């Protein structure tokens, strides 16, 4: 993956956000704010997430049946909607991840032909 000098953040590639959300929820149920924060923290603050963009994605994932939502109360005694990964979501995450890895390998192969291994 491309490295970046500190400070400039990378816009998320459309479609990869779903995968990141699912990945975040692997650690347990959390709310939208928590998900946004996690993604930023995990990427070493490299990926910039516009928090608002998470919500359409959450709706979509719910409709696919990959996550479920439930109202709960945060540690600050604040009402918040908690999202939980379903079994289907877990499977989806595996598929998405392997697809992503192949994608990255492909892109790398194109960008750095000399380094890419011969296609089998």
């Amino acid at each position, binding site marked *: 993956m491309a490295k970046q000098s500190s400070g400039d953040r990378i816009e998320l590639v459309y479609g990869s956000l779903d995968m990141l959300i699912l990945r975040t929820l692997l650690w347990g149920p959390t709310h939208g704010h928590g998900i946004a924060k996690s993604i930023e923290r995990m990427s070493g603050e490299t990926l910039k997430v516009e*928090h608002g963009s998470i919500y359409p994605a959450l709706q979509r994932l719910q409709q696919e049946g990959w996550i479920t939502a439930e109202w709960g109360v945060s540690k600050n005694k604040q009402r918040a909607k908690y999202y939980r990964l379903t079994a289907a979501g877990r499977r989806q995450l595996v598929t998405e991840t392997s697809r992503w890895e192949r994608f990255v390998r492909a892109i790398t192969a194109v960008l750095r032909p000399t380094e890419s291994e011969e296609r089998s």
Partner: protein
Amino acid sequence: MSWRRELSRLRALFRRPKLADDLKAEIRSHLEMEERENLESGMPAQEAHYAALRRFGNVTLAEEGSREMWISNAGETLLQDLRYGLRQLRRNPGFAAVAIVTLALGIGANTAIFSVVSAVVLRPLPYPHSDRLVWIAESFPALKSEVATGGDYLDWKDQNHTLDRIAAYDRGTKVEGSKGTSDNFNLTGRGTPARVHGASVSASFFTTLGVEPQIGRAFTENEDQPNGPHVVVLMHSFWQQYFGSDPHVLGQTVDLDAAPYTVVGVMPASFRFPEDSGAQILLPLALNQASERLRIQPQRMVRIIGRLKPGVSLAAAWADLDEIRKRAQPSGGPMLAEGGRGEGPVTRDNGSSRSETARATGPSGMLSARRGASRPNGGAPLASELKVVPLAEHLAGNLRPAMLTLMGVVGLVLLIACANVANLMLTRASTRTREVAVRAVLGAGRWRLVRQLLAESVILAVAGGVAGLLFAAWGVNVIARLIPAGTGAGILSVVTPKVDGNVLLFALAVSLVTGVLFGLAPAVAATRPDLAEGLKEGTRLAGAGSGRGGLRGALAVAELSLALMLLIGAGLLIKSFYRVLQVNPGFAPEGVMTLGLSLTDARYPTAQQKSEFFSQVLRRVESLPGVRSAAFADSLPLSPYQNLVMMSPNRLQPRAALSNSTMVMMMLLRVSPGYFYTLGIPVLKGRTFTDRDDEQALKVAVVNETLARHLWPTEDPIGKQFPLMRDNLTVIGVVGNTRHEGLSQETKAEIYVPYLQPPGPDNSMQLAVRTTATPASLVSAVRAQVRAIDPDQPLYHVTTLEQTLSESLAPRRFNVLLLGIFAGIALALATVGIYGVMAFSVTQRTHEIGIRMALGAERRSVLGLIVRQGLRLTLIGVALGVAGAWALTSFLASFLFGVAPRDPATFVLASLTLVAVSILACYIPARRATRVDPMVALRYQ
């Protein structure tokens, strides 16, 4: 997975307000959390608030984005997909055009045939609760007829427990077309004398069918009696034609056979008589109940329709009626009458023993099947069984199997069309690999991609469907016109095939299914997740993509094999048709004009007067310029026989060589002396009739070859005595066989008697005139001669024997034509299919071919390489097609003549045709391959 999404979207539709509130609350909570964090990190309050908002981005956009996920999508993504599909197709008009035309052919053919099938098999008859209407008859396999007598009808009517209503009728045959006897009348007093066609119906006929006259009333039970009042109910068209739709028609009279009949009712225009009858008027059946119940000969032959009581099954009705039938014939089955003195000619099953034949001949005993009792001289009883079938099924008759076969045929055509378009889609998909890969990487789910590609194929299919529907609307008319009058015209006179709601629904369903059928495989193949490969440049060099190539090959093979099956089927029918045309009819139809003349008893009460009239007509017509000869017969070739004679050979003197005592069945024809000459029937032995063979002379007969060979295989038939009815006839000649019932029908044993000898001519005779000029030019001259003798005498069925012969071949021509057309379409589609596969393969292998040529391969070997590849596919297709045809052609057996369903010659010829066409289709791309410039090819990506 996606059904779940659709489901949750559907749910969301109803819970929208709640979801929207939820979302607002959720976002508010999010912003508060962020704000709190900002505060905790030491931001001033106001800035913490704004920072949180900044971080969140556009709140409205987020809300909208989420809402879109719930609702808009079900409809909107579909719309998007369709729009996208349309755009893609517009970019490839050539591809779209080919696909749409292919589909239009497939769907159109199916829709056209389906509209006929729908009319014949699916649509209810135009009577209320028509599902409860049944056809009841006694079936005599030996006579190939289904009949019932007035006595049967009365017994069933009185004793059944399963029928609501039961009606009998005596339909004549249609005026146009066939020439059988019927309830036909000479209509006089209303312009030119005309022959009108009537049907006699019992008083219960109207209530059984559930129809009522539009004006006036139905017949009463009192009118439905022998010697009852002369009343008539007019069909709508007759009312229009002869009464100018006069609303005050009731009480007026119509002169039928010179007797006045009072009009009591007019049927509505929508009423259809339940059979191919073209009935113009309805009369009371007027059964003689007393004599019918006692089964006194001659009995009336009737047709019977019943209306089942609600909830009664066919089987229950059958059992009920069969019991009654068995009670009526204790001796265990009917047999043909064979009176003490001789055999009675049985009137042919035209359902009319009264009208012409029986009425005319009276005492000479034109009997019909007689029940029970004695069995002199060892006549075998005729086996019979009761038939109770739904009326719709009875009417559909022999059209049903033909239509279902055709449905199967067009189904195959549609499959081929699908395979073809699937192949096109595959070819296109492979050029779009990269586009698909990019879209997938950008986050489009596989299902969405498949759906997009499917949307494209469904658009194609629907466009093809619309075009096909136009094609079908035109085709239905053509087919309906082509359906020959004889074939199942019964049902088509009641229902007309047309493009109706059912058909539209069918076309839509076929289009959608087709779209999915040919779109799914390519779509799934195209979105196979080998994205990295798809994204890379130059993967095309890596080889022909064996997986997809295999699918393409399989589709081509399927097309070829289906096409071969159709080719073989069409080949068999064509060969049958050819065989039928080769048949020698036994008569010379060229230049023979024919027409019908029917005398009424009122005007010509005695046989003497009838003979006089017919003789006079002959004399006058023969004297016309351009007439070579003229003759009368009670049945000319290609019209139904009027008389069937059953005879016990034991009564032949001396006894015939036949050892067994089975009855000999033969057809009796009453002809005038010039008959054999006029019809061109060769005289093989002895002589034929002369004018001197009249009522005073020795009773003579002429037999045909079949009968002669059957009765006197080793002896000379001339001079043999032949017992018939009360008389002993002397055989004076043997004539050649004729295909009286049609070219593809077996020749029957025939015996000819001079029409002047008792019992004398029938009321209805047919006139044949051999002309030296064109027959049509003589019509008015002949008409004038007849009018000169009797101005009130109508002529009908004026046509030529050639025309009749051609019409008799119509069903066969119809089958050949339709199957031929469909096989042609199939072959064309399959050819395009294999061409497409080979052309694509050549494109794919350009690089490889370039290398081969650079390494010194000759053009010829490259050509061979490609053609061999195509040939391999073709041969697999041929093998499968032959196997399929081997299994299926037996369904065609009933349509064949003189050809076995597995005729090797046809199989081989059809296969060779397919191989030849297919090689040609491979040759074109192969030649292109040889033109490849190695330098270009090697650089080719």
